């Protein structure tokens, strides 16, 4: 399959070609999701080198493992990012990197950004990312705190209960309320196409 044909494939169809161990298809997969993957890894580990290692490990595991993508469980992008998240959290738990940041005042990330390579798509993503960050910040602190500890810190509910010294039921309740608010007040405010664009 030629590169131009590959470039026209949907993510789901692209994965079928990646499964056949086509390096050009894999390169296209990286081109589509590598930036988001690295950004997520950096957000979790707070260190550029470790984030690159985690991103590379995640993509290699996808390449080598007959990628177990299941379209019934979500988009390719969400799946790739879940693999990256797991690798980044592994790296975090192995130690040697900074603790996850619990705020969004990310000067280091801004400094690390390679502005000349930003594309229009990236700019739109950044704009939306900024809106989403603002929305998450508008959550009550106790809700955004447990969501960030869970998603970006990789902590289980019982670990979070221990960290913030609250009962397990309280932690789970805060996660539910926070996630419901994001879903109802933010995700529904963004058009389904926009959500598809961000998660697909």
């Amino acid at each position: 399959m030629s590169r131009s044909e590959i470039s026209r494939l949907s993510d789901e169809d692209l994965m079928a070609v990646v499964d056949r161990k086509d390096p050009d298809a894999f390169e296209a997969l990286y081109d589509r999701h590598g930036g988001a993957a690295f950004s997520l890894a950096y957000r979790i580990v707070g260190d550029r080198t470790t984030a690159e290692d985690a991103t590379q490990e995640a993509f290699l595991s996808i390449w080598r493992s007959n990628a177990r993508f299941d379209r019934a469980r979500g988009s390719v992008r969400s799946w790739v990012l879940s693999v990256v998240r797991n690798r980044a959290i592994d790296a975090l738990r192995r130690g040697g990197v900074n603790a996850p940041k619990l705020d969004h005042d990310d000067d280091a990330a801004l400094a690390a950004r390679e502005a000349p390579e930003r594309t229009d798509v990236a700019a739109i993503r950044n704009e939306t990312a900024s809106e989403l960050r603002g929305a998450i910040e508008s959550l009550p602190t106790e809700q955004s705190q447990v969501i960030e500890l869970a998603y970006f810190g990789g902590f289980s509910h019982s670990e979070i209960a221990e960290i913030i010294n609250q009962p397990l039921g309280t932690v789970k309740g805060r996660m539910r309320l926070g996630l419901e608010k994001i879903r109802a007040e933010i995700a529904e405010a963004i058009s389904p196409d926009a959500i598809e664009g961000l998660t697909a």
Partner: protein
Amino acid sequence: MSAEEMDHGGCSERHDDLATYALGALPPGEAAALEQHLAGCETCTERLQWLRPAADLLPASVEQLNPRPELKRDLMAVVREEAPAYAPARQPSRAEAAKPGPFARFRMKLLGDGPLRPALAGFAAFCLVVVGIAGFELGKDGGETTTTSSFAALPTSSKMTGGGTVQVSGGQGTLTVAGMDPIPHDEVYQAWVAEGDKIEPSSIFVVNSAGQGSASIPDLPPGADRVMVTREPAGGSQQPSTAPVLSAEL
């Protein structure tokens, strides 16, 4: 569908768990139990589908950065190097399919001529990869021609995971492994060199979270016929204390 509309399914006690699950914060045992419930509960499944985009959007909330181009360059170098080893995974031509290739011959020798038993299929698929990358290279080193031989390091049973290669050149070897089981901090992997019944300890090594690692085998005697890998206590051992997990016939 709003959150309120979905609160009438009789599973409200599970709603907290669904959010925790969507955030990846439910421990594996509880996650498995919830997945079992989801398989038979349409209400909870619909609610999870409604909630999931909120969790899926969280990665989009982070500052979007561009990785260095070197990351892609290094990644694709590995991928393009490994791709030929997976070549039989691609659709063979009719002529290629009719003629037994190296893997088919290897499989027949290893497993007999017939369909792979499921338990051995993964093992055989792995063998396909490592056999595919075994071979010989010739190179020039300071005007002298040197030979580098590569040997597949295979799991010793279908229950073992991982594998790798041993590259031998000029009386020295390099063992490279991937897909190995993680080991606790008080254990290491150790390479051993066998020459008939004589087994000598060699380097110890650990693997990263992807199960990848490497070790040099500095003194490889000319009569060495096997390199093995075992799990040993931290610091290594003078004699193997566990059964080999990998073995490479030289």
